[in-house]
């Protein structure tokens, strides 16, 4: 479904992603595991197209120069130079890292804004879906998102990306700041979402412990390079991974 081929990303002279090739098949849950600054966010931004926008903005400001090589294709179409909102229309939706939500709007309005692309009659349905997933959000409906706690914002951010009904859902560190109960719940529901809607999911995490059991396949990134690749089980049982990502 998604194919990233020989991707290289430079921030000015620093190489953030080096010759990375990955692919995702329809209906899979794929994990990208990597410690800090491995380049996960950069990869996610490239796939979702946000990087193009950043690049343009930096260029206008005369800031750092971002250079991208390689190609990204989605269901057979080359989308390397497709703008982010077009990609969303094609079905690629990203829940960004560290929950940047619309702080001045209340929770419900955030979700409303998020449903920009989905048809109006689906709104109620999606809304109750999100509220089911994160019941903690229900009493907070009327609160401005900026006042939410870190974890609540994270829930909201994920909820917002679900409102779009993606085909390919990109989750960048979805577990960040969530309490263990919610983490478990989220992981369960990721599986559930996949089962119900057959959406393809790509998760980036460095906190691999909860994620590894549910992924079909996984890639391990290190300093922008692919270090390991395998099915969920393979990775789960890999002693190196255990040492590096489980702390045993």
């Amino acid at each position, binding site marked *: 479904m998604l194919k990233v081929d020989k991707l290289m990303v430079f921030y000015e002279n620093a190489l953030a992603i080096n010759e990375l090739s990955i692919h995702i098949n329809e209906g899979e849950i794929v994990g990208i595991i990597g410690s800090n600054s491995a380049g996960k966010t950069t990869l996610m931004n490239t796939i979702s197209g*946000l990087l193009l926008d950043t690049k343009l903005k930096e260029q206008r400001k005369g800031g750092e120069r971002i250079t991208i090589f390689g190609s990204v294709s989605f269901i057979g179409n080359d989308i390397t130079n497709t703008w*982010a909102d077009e990609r969303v229309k094609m079905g690629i*939706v990203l829940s960004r890292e560290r929950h940047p939500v*619309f702080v001045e709007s209340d929770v419900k309005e955030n979700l*409303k804004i998020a449903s920009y692309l989905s048809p109006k009659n689906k709104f109620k349905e999606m809304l109750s879906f999100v509220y089911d997933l994160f019941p903690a959000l229900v009493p907070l409906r009327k609160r401005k998102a900026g006042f939410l706690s870190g974890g609540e914002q994270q829930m909201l951010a994920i909820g917002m*990306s679900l409102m779009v009904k993606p085909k390919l859902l990109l989750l960048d560190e979805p577990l960040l700041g969530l309490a263990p109960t919610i983490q478990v719940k989220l992981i369960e529901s990721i599986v559930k979402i996949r089962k119900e809607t057959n959406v393809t999911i790509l998760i980036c995490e460095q906190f691999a412990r909860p994620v590894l059991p549910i992924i079909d396949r996984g890639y391990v990134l290190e300093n922008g390079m692919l270090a390991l690749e395998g099915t969920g089980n393979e990775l789960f049982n890999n002693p190196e991974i255990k040492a590096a990502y489980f702390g045993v």
Partner: protein
Amino acid sequence: MFVYGLINSAVLALMALGFNLTFGISGIANFAYGAIYVVAGFITWAFINHLNLPYAVSAILTIIIIGIFGALVYKFIIKRIRGLVISEVIATFGISIILLELLRFIGLIGFKYSLPVFIDGSVEILGVYVDIQRLFIIGLGILVIISLYVFTHHTKTGLAFRGIAQEEHTSLSLGINPDRIASLSMGMGSALGAFAAIVILPLGTITVDSGYDVLINALSVCIVGGLGSTFGVIIASFIIGYTQTITAMYLAPHWTMIVSLFAILVILVIKPSGLLGHQKELEERV
């Protein structure tokens, strides 16, 4: 007194709403707003007097033209400096002086430019005569406020306006194209400005200088109300509008400016992010 305070407030609100739509709600500083307001007046005037179009047609044409103009300004100018607020302000301010001074240059000075009122005549309300145009202002003001509220809170595009102002990248990752929405908001804001001009200008003559006044009025109403809040704009226009009328009535007209500026100052000291804004608390949340 009551009636004229109301009218004054409605005038302020009408002037501010277009500005609020672009600046307050979608976060794009359009300091050419005042110029657009004046230009709209002159365009309508030209349509009526030179092309001999009927009033309604001229008005609608003007609103459309100005709307497109606003969108084009975004497309060719602001788009390139999006995010650099100071540059946005300076660029649009530059546009504003270009427009206004061009108007002056082509000789649109003097006192002969004025728009006709919708319906001539006046009625007596609460013991004072009020011309019908002023009633129109109140009515249309309310109408615009309501539709604006509905628009920004209940339509997708309106919500997208609010989105791009707050987190452009998040909006982008949700499929909202900030450039498209932003140019739309510029266009609509300008069109609203044109609308305000067409409604308000029949009260007097069209002059180039009023462009700057309109901008300052709109800016202060918008900020006092709290950026992004349609209701804030209404309340702010009422406060400022009535302080002006009351001062003019009981103190003296030349104190109005001082008193209303002072009112703004006091409001900002008490409510640091405007009447209905949450800016400060949000920023201070850690």
